[in-house]
């Protein structure tokens, strides 16, 4: 196995780990006592350490080892979670990321950064080091949990039987099974370790790059079953891993418990120290008699607060999700290949269909029936493949936690970051491309929208501003909103700026909608001063361009003193669209249905030529630019006179134009196939599709078309 392959596998893994780490570290800042998060962070550093070693990143390996030790002390309660600890872990993670992805190891500046960080690590580990107060006073539940854990430590041991058998080629994925087993061993003493070496060939016949050993281990640990399962989180899909709670076989004096895969609410609350065993028993007894919900009983009896119950319910959902999560990793290129192959099947199918229609005997009828059934299957097949491309937006949302934290710190603002609809699914390609626009909008909200804490208090608001990132499905589209509870957009300033840029006349009445739409214009900024973060008038126009290139749209709403909301509308997928099939000359062109407002046949007097605007068509009281499609593609049309042809009114953003076409064929779902640049460099074409009769039709990119025409 080549160095390059190992390195590549590591880079992929490291990117994923760092993204998760970033989100978890910021979450730890908000939930300083959450042991689950501390454990996860520890394990991420542990995995980074091992994998970086294998991939040859020696410095990253050694550095991660030191951070891992620090985190182990945090895990063991020897070091408290403080502001400076969080900063140190984040800075360490940044150093690791830069070493791996940007700067490389051995760079002088990187070495200096490393020395400073390791110095801070050393300070933390001094016995009398931390006089700093804990980040937040841990709430009663967490304090009780810690106390409960210490008290019951001796009785909390569990025994797990872990059987781990790895695929032979596991090293190719940059994974070292030994590291995984070491991670397992870190959870407690190993009582029995049977290493199966039967598959290991004789020395002469061994392939040293294959994995042959497997394990059957009994481990004694205070960790919960899900924590043991988490050890195998990166390997469980492709390898045979079973974890079994066998406590009953090893501790006969304890009550027998079957392995628990879906934890009950009471169990979670008991384990977290929120309720005692007596309280649990009492609540269960009451539940049996009264038939009320467990959480309600706990709250009514005063055993826990509503917040504590809600927290436990969330944890229960996470655990359930983890149990249910049986996934495999597939390269999206493979999915695209399958989709392309399916496209070929559809074309073959439609040729068969044509033959069947030409056959006038019984065989023709039989063939038509078969093709009808086949058609349903291929449609379903297509839908299934499309659904595989859909991934939840949660991880993308989560990576903004760090971003929000850092910006808020740099501006001395207090921020709460709320996520809603993390489970909302979106095409992978769309998700990858909305990252930057979202970042920009969040940055704008914090910089321009959220007031300084004292200003907020004066306005009767919570000193901490809130940014809510929300995703949801509606009418076949995905909506993403960035909402803030800041001061809102100052419309008067927008108006002044618009006048100064000659966008409106001083005496012109402009609607709020129109004023806010100016914010998407290049160079338009109402910021009084240009900061490091924003205010340069570059950004919202780029956001708009990016979103529109995804066939989406964006709009702003704002209320003075109460906040702003930016709403993005996106298609569910980029690979399939609803298209209107049109004819011009001998060619078929597809117009995305999302952009179509109406199709009209204009009267002769509706067509005019206006100076500075060119040829226009009158549509509902306004004159829209008329674009002759045949001129764009340099072909001969059937009709040159608009009053003989059809005009499709299309819209992109807030701009409408009329597209002159010969005829309309109908509408259907279109599988988009990309075109190489050497075929067309025109921005007016976004791709192509193969139609049922095997012919190729170009898909019109309305946004690009308008840009092309305007720039021409």
């Amino acid at each position, binding site marked *: 196995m080549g160095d390059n392959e190992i390195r590549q596998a590591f880079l992929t893994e490291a990117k994923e780990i760092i993204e998760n780490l970033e989100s978890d570290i910021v979450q730890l800042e908000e939930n300083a006592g959450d042991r689950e998060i501390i454990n996860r962070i520890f394990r991420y550093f542990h995995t980074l350490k091992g994998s970086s070693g294998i991939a040859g990143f020696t410095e990253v390996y050694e550095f991660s080892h030191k951070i891992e030790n620090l985190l182990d002390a945090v895990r063991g309660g020897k070091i408290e979670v403080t502001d400076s600890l969080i900063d140190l872990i984040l800075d360490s993670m940044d150093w690791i990321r830069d070493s791996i992805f940007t700067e490389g190891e051995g760079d002088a500046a990187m070495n200096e950064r490393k020395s400073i960080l390791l110095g801070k690590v050393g300070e933390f580990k001094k016995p009398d080091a931390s006089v700093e107060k804990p980040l937040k006073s841990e709430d009663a539940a967490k304090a009780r949990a810690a106390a409960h854990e210490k008290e019951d430590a001796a009785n909390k041991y569990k025994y797990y039987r872990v059987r781990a058998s790895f695929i032979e080629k596991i090293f190719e994925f940059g994974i070292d*099974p030994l590291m995984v087993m070491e991670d397992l061993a870190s959870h407690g003493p190993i009582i029995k370790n049977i290493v199966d070496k039967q598959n290991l060939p004789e020395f002469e016949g061994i392939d040293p790059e294959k994995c042959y050993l497997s394990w059957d281990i009994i481990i004694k640990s205070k960790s919960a079953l899900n924590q043991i399962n988490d050890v195998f989180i990166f390997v469980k899909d492709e390898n045979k891993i079973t974890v079994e709670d066998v406590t009953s076989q090893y501790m006969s004096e304890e009550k027998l418990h079957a392995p628990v895969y879906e934890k009950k609410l009471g169990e979670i609350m008991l384990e977290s120290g929120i309720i005692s065993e007596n309280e649990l028993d009492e609540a269960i007894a009451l539940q049996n008699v009264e038939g009320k919900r467990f959480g309600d009983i706990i709250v009514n009896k005063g055993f826990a607060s509503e917040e504590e119950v809600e927290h436990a319910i969330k944890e229960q959902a996470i655990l359930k999700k983890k149990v249910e999560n049986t996934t495999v990793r597939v390269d999206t290129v493979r999915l695209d290949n399958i989709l392309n192959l399916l496209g070929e099947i559809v074309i073959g199918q439609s040729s068969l269909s044509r033959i069947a229609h030409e056959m006038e005997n019984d065989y023709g009828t039989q063939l038509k029936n078969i093709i009808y059934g086949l058609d349903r299957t291929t449609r379903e097949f297509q839908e299934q493949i499309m659904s595989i491309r859909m991934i939840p937006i949660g991880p993308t949302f989560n990576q903004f936690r760090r971003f929000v934290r850092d910006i808020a710190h740099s501006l001395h603002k207090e921020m709460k970051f709320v996520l809603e609809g993390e489970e909302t699914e979106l095409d992978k390609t769309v998700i990858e491309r909305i990252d930057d626009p979202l970042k920009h909008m969040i940055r704008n909200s914090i910089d321009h929208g959220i007031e300084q804490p004292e200003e907020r208090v004066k306005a009767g608001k919570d000193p901490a501003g809130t940014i809510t990132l929300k995703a949801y499905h509606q009418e076949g589209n995905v909506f993403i909103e960035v909402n803030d509870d800041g001061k809102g957009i100052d419309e008067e300033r927008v108006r002044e700026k618009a006048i100064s840029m000659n966008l409106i006349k001083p005496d012109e009445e402009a609607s709020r909608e129109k004023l806010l739409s100016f914010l998407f214009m290049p160079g338009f900024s109402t910021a009084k001063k240009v900061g490091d973060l924003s205010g340069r008038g570059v950004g919202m126009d780029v956001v708009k361009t990016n979103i529109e290139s995804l066939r989406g749209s964006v709009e702003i709403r704002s209320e003075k003193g109460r906040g702003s909301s930016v709403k993005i509308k996106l298609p569910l997928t980029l690979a399939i669209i609803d298209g209107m099939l049109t004819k011009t000359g001998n060619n078929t062109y597809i117009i995305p249905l999302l952009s179509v407002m109406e199709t009209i046949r204009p009267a002769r007097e509706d067509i005019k030529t206006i100076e500075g605007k060119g040829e226009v068509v009158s549509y509902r009281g306004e004159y829209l630019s008329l674009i002759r499609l045949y001129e764009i593609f340099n072909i001969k049309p059937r009709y040159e006179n608009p009053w003989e042809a059809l005009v499709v009114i299309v819209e992109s953003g807030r701009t409408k134009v009329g597209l002159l076409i010969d005829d309309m064929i109908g509408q259907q779902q279109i599988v988009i196939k990309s075109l190489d640049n050497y075929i067309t460099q025109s921005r007016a074409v976004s791709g192509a599709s193969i139609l049922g009769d095997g012919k190729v039709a170009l898909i019109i990119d309305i946004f690009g078309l308008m840009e092309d025409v305007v720039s021409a």
Partner: protein
Amino acid sequence: MIIEEEIFGIKHVRKFYGNLKEEYKSGIELIIDFKSVKRVDLSIVQVLTAVVRMARKDGRVVKFKSLSEDVKNQMILCGLKI
């Protein structure tokens, strides 16, 4: 045989395996010095396991020198008796 790498793993295993084969064939006493090694991976431990097993059959001994505690623990976890 002296191992120079600090992190000794899949990147080095093929070469290590070849060298080990050669050295074993030469019939000299096989001593592997791990002085610089801070960590090994499973691929290395498997090769060591296989050579130890072969040596035992042949009535020979493979000696591991200057093993750190960490590496020793790794070998124990893989069932390699040292």
